[in-house]
């Protein structure tokens, strides 16, 4: 896919890939019910990279699990390519926040990446090819036979990303994937995500609590309110497609967008229930 397809989204130009409508989730933990998500409605166009920011505890992980079909919402629907998501759909890969627990300690890096492909019944030759390519893409070529616990946190997260891209998903969900890695690794991984997204044309929903990260990565930023959660704002990031850790972050437009997202988050924290019109 070439870069032309990744100009900022104009409504209706690209078909919707992921559609979340009126999503609500109430946790029933015995006597107390927690309404983690109240009413979320948004769409991701095919091939779009959207960042979702919101204060911690506002229900981002909850939302992602509902989208991934891992948890049934209390109300509302999730549609992937016009089909309702009721169980984990085939074309979706999730990179979890807790990468250490998401990788299987009893399997080598290669086996971790290959296992979902085996379940997809891909032939051996194709699996080997995908594993090699994806490990190369994340810069872990020499580590196929290592075990996850022999790698640093940043490397483990890259294995999780390699596993996701080897799966060749239509939609990639990432839940605060870089929250626990150091700043330098984080910058590298951010560029890696944009590179993969541009190369594979995959639709990405990237959850973060970091405003800079959201603006730097996204074509669009969705700001969530405090719990009970609604979409507080939907901001189009009209920065150039080619982004650079130094120049982009110094760009005036970047600073403006960041200020806008920041203001919205502040509003969200004050607990304004009204979504921005």
């Amino acid at each position, binding site marked *: 896919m070439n870069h032309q397809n990744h100009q900022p989204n104009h409504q209706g130009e690209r078909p919707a890939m992921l559609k979340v409508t009126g999503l609500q989730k109430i946790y029933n933990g015995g006597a107390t019910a927690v309404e983690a998500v109240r009413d979320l409605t948004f769409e991701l166009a095919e091939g779009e990279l959207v960042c979702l920011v919101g204060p911690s505890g506002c229900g981002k992980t909850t939302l992602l*699990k509902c989208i*991934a*079909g*891992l948890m049934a919402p209390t109300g509302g629907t999730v549609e992937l390519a016009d089909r309702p998501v009721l169980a*984990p759909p*085939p074309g*979706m*890969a*999730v990179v*979890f926040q*807790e990468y250490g*627990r*998401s990788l*299987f*300690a*009893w*399997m080598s890096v290669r086996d971790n990446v290959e*296992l*979902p492909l085996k*379940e*997809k019944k891909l032939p051996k030759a194709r699996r080997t090819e995908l594993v090699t390519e994806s490990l190369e893409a994340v810069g872990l070529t020499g580590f196929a036979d290592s*075990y996850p*616990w*022999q790698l640093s946190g940043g490397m483990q997260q890259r294995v999780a990303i390699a*596993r996701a891209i080897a*799966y060749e998903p239509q939609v990639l969900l990432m839940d605060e994937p870089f929250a626990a890695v150091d700043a330098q690794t984080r910058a590298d991984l951010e560029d890696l995500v944009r590179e993969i997204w541009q190369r594979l044309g995959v639709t990405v929903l990237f959850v973060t609590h970091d405003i800079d990260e959201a603006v730097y990565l996204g074509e669009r930023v969705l700001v969530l309110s405090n719990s009970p959660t609604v979409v507080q704002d939907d901001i189009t990031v009209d920065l150039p497609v080619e982004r650079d850790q130094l120049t982009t972050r110094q760009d005036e437009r970047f600073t403006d967008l960041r200020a806008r997202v920041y203001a919205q988050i502040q509003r969200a924290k004050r607990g304004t229930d009204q979504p921005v019109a």
Partner: protein
Amino acid sequence: MSTTHTRDTVAAGPPPDGTRRPRPLNSAFSRTAPNRPLLGALGIAGLLALWELAPRLGAVPERYFPPVSEVLATLAERATTAPFWEAVGHTLYGWALGLGIALAAAILLGFALGAAPRLRAFTTSTVDFLRPIPSVALIPLAVLVYGTDIRSTLLLVVYACFWLIYIQVLYGVADVDPVAEQTARSYGLGRLARIRYVVWPTTLPYLMTGLRLAAAVGLILSITAQLIIGSPGIGDQITNAQQGGAVALVYAWIVATGILGVVINIGVRALERRVLRWHTSVRGEAAA
């Protein structure tokens, strides 16, 4: 007999902790590595010297307590005869078969019930009632039903080993990390694939702990059954030696039993290290 006692101490051992806290499997090696074997050898040498000298100096009556040289000579002499190895074979057969049956049953039931929380809750009180019953309390029943047949020995071994392993399997099955489970589900792994690639490896450290405990207890019960019921094996040989007044031979058999226990323990630990290469308890060595 001390069987009840052994059961208690063994059963009270801490359950393994899947990932959070390394079990002390190899910590003993790492810190004091150079001194350990030496100290161990010195300890044994000291014990042997004491055992040799005490009867010879008259500190204990030699009639009931022959010096170690005599015991070991008897053992060495017996070890060249076929009946000795037959008896060892009988004991090991009862042990291995009983342990195998208990292992298979515990894994099957543990996984089945682990997947069915309601059924598990339904059976918990029954298990809590049956588990503390010492296997030796079943001896009269075993004799009544099976006589001196090997099945008597098997009943006792299976009963004791089963609970030790079964409880561990239940712990293990319940310890599956929700993130690992969700990862597997999101990548389209079905029920069987999740059992094979997620639940089974998670349970393995627990299972190995159960197996290690059961291997030791199984040997004790295999010998106890022969000792009391009189089915052929080491236990039966000890009774015979005792009734024939061959005190040195009684001790020789006891030493043989001890050696057998040590060998079995070494074997199980080697297996554990192999199977759990990736686990926190073994990892240090594997990575080095």
